[in-house]
């Protein structure tokens, strides 16, 4: 199985094998590099925890699947590990689109189509949960489209504004 961890660019591949009541790792790869490390895995049903033993250390983790992502609590922190989808496209940011971080209402549009913006320049003010959130330009460029006007309701993930950057043709696409 192939995974991507939030906050990390690499693809991690794991192949497991089961023996009696335990699982073992046959192969672990970060991109093309194999990680030579032994893992033994068991499950603590009473607490809903996965127990991993590796290099003499014991890790206790809790994992819950939400959509196509595993939410994993490990060492007092929560991580999100997603199934790597082969035909996934790059993020909206790479294509110069800015998406609504959550559902809300457009309070104010601060730029016009065709306007040049500098990095960090405020472009739109979104109101959600009675708080204002500023949508700023992630990089310098030119506003190519504005998809909403003041007072419009937007859903989470909807593209609000597109920016054409100087080298948008070379923006990072799917690998």
């Amino acid at each position, binding site marked *: *199985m192939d*995974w991507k*961890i939030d*906050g*990390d660019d*690499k693809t*991690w*591949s*794991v*192949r*497991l094998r*089961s023996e009696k*009541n335990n*699982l073992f*790792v046959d192969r*672990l790869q*970060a991109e093309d590099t194999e*990680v030579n*490390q032994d*893992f033994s*895995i068991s*499950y603590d*049903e*009473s607490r*809903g925890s*996965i127990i*991993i033993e*590796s290099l003499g250390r014991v*890790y206790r*983790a*809790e*994992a*819950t*699947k*939400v959509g196509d992502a*595993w*939410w*994993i*609590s*490990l*060492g*007092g*922190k*929560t*991580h999100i*590990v997603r199934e790597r989808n082969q035909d996934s496209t790059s993020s909206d940011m790479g294509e110069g689109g800015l998406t609504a*971080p*959550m*559902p*809300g209402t457009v*309070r104010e549009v601060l730029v016009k189509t065709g306007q040049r913006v500098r990095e960090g320049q405020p472009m739109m*003010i979104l*109101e*959600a*949960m*009675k*708080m*204002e*959130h500023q949508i700023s330009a992630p990089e310098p460029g030119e506003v190519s489209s504005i998809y909403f006007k003041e007072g419009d309701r937007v859903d*989470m993930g909807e593209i609000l504004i597109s920016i054409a950057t100087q080298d948008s043709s070379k923006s990072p696409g799917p690998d």
Partner: protein
Amino acid sequence: MATPEWMMEATTPFSSVLVANRGEIAVRVLRAVRECGLRGVAVYNDLDSNSMHLNFADEKIRLPGEDLASTYLSMDAILDAARASGADAIHPGYGFLSERSEFADRVTQSGLVWIGPSADAIRTMGDKIRAREAMVDASVPVIPGKSIEVSGDEDPLPQLAAAAAEVGYPLLLKASAGGGGKGMRMVEEPKRLRAEYDAASREATAAFGDGTVYVERLLRRARHIEIQVFADRHRNVIHLNERDCSLQRRHQKVIEEAPSPAVDPSLRSLMGEAAVQAARAVDYEGAGTVEFLLSDKGEFYFLEMNTRLQVEHPVTELITGLDLVHMQLSVAAGLPLPVKQSEVGISGHAMEARLYAEDPSTGFLPSIGPIARFDTPDGPGIRVDTGVRTGDEVTTAFDPMLAKVIVHAPDRASAIRRLDQALSQIILHGVRSNIGFCREMLVSDSFSGPGVTTDHLDDMDPPPRPEEPLKGILSVIASAAERLGLHRAAVTRDSSIVDQHTGHPGDPFRTLSRNFP
């Protein structure tokens, strides 16, 4: 249900309390109502029909509708619910109608007992300008500031600029009817005045329907210290020491503690006395909080008085051994306070972290989604006040606060360690939270040392990303979870995994359906 025995001597006894709220505070108050031998009535709207607080009530009344305005914020709907359930008292919790003087009036006029201060006290303290005048009259120190009356279409900027120049930069713009950080903006220099004013008045209008703005000098490196006060109908007013709420992010409190590391016994009695004066000035009754800013020179200034139970009341409960909700019920029945000022002590140190469904990596935007798993910490000295459990959903309809984790320990250093440990035990999947952020704050040098000022969080760096060796382990865990079939145990709001009677997510008798290898 009959009036309980402890209330027999009371002048305004009651037997059945409607809690006009939801979430953790409704759970907290409904628990106390039952502990005091009273009947608890919960209310819920159509988005809340399976919410946790309903498990703690003897009767639940539906408020038809999904929006707040026609349900939790509707005085008519709440009063109808009280009538339908036969409740003879109303506890407002915090937020919603708790600081609406008109509601306090209407509850009383309907012949019900209002568990809170008089409508007059709420009115005076709810209007920042009148509150300030009342404090000046009562010789309670106030921060330099001026109020601006915004009249319709006239451009407010000239008079705003004049007031700002008089007060001095940097300054704070506050909507008179604002609160909780909404409708409040910091202005560093004159040229930012227009933009910040527009933002403040918009936020205030959206949240409270009042556009009046107050200009106030911003005290840098100041601490937010608040004094819990309690007053009865027999002219007894006491204070229950201070809480330090200096660790804030954008004026929202994140970590609160009692006692404050910046307050010594003599300052405590000075501030306590000022808070008692403030309460007396408005003939206060019940639980209230007087907020002060404490400058680095040891001067303190009145900020505002919150005429309700505070979110952070548990830290006061832990160090004083008092139950503030029990006391509210008793005072509302007309009984005298159970303790005198000389009997109020401080035992150890208490600290609270507010757990919010928000994502530090996106600038703390609220995070919505299913609460796929929520295991809360336990152990000696750990208290968790929450209103959600596994299977619930976080939506934009309600406040994003999920829970409060409160610890009690012998001293401040051990309270910090205990809270950090307690937070590390939380398992929360499905929505992002500020847990990691809180933990970093707790162990930061500036917090674990002398404590922080309210500017602290604006100075912090973003949290670090996962370390390299951990990533391999995480992908192994994800593969193993898949192989173990844990994804088939995914829960929803209607799942039977949550125990319907206790609402407890970690019910030991639950089993996960899964395939073992």
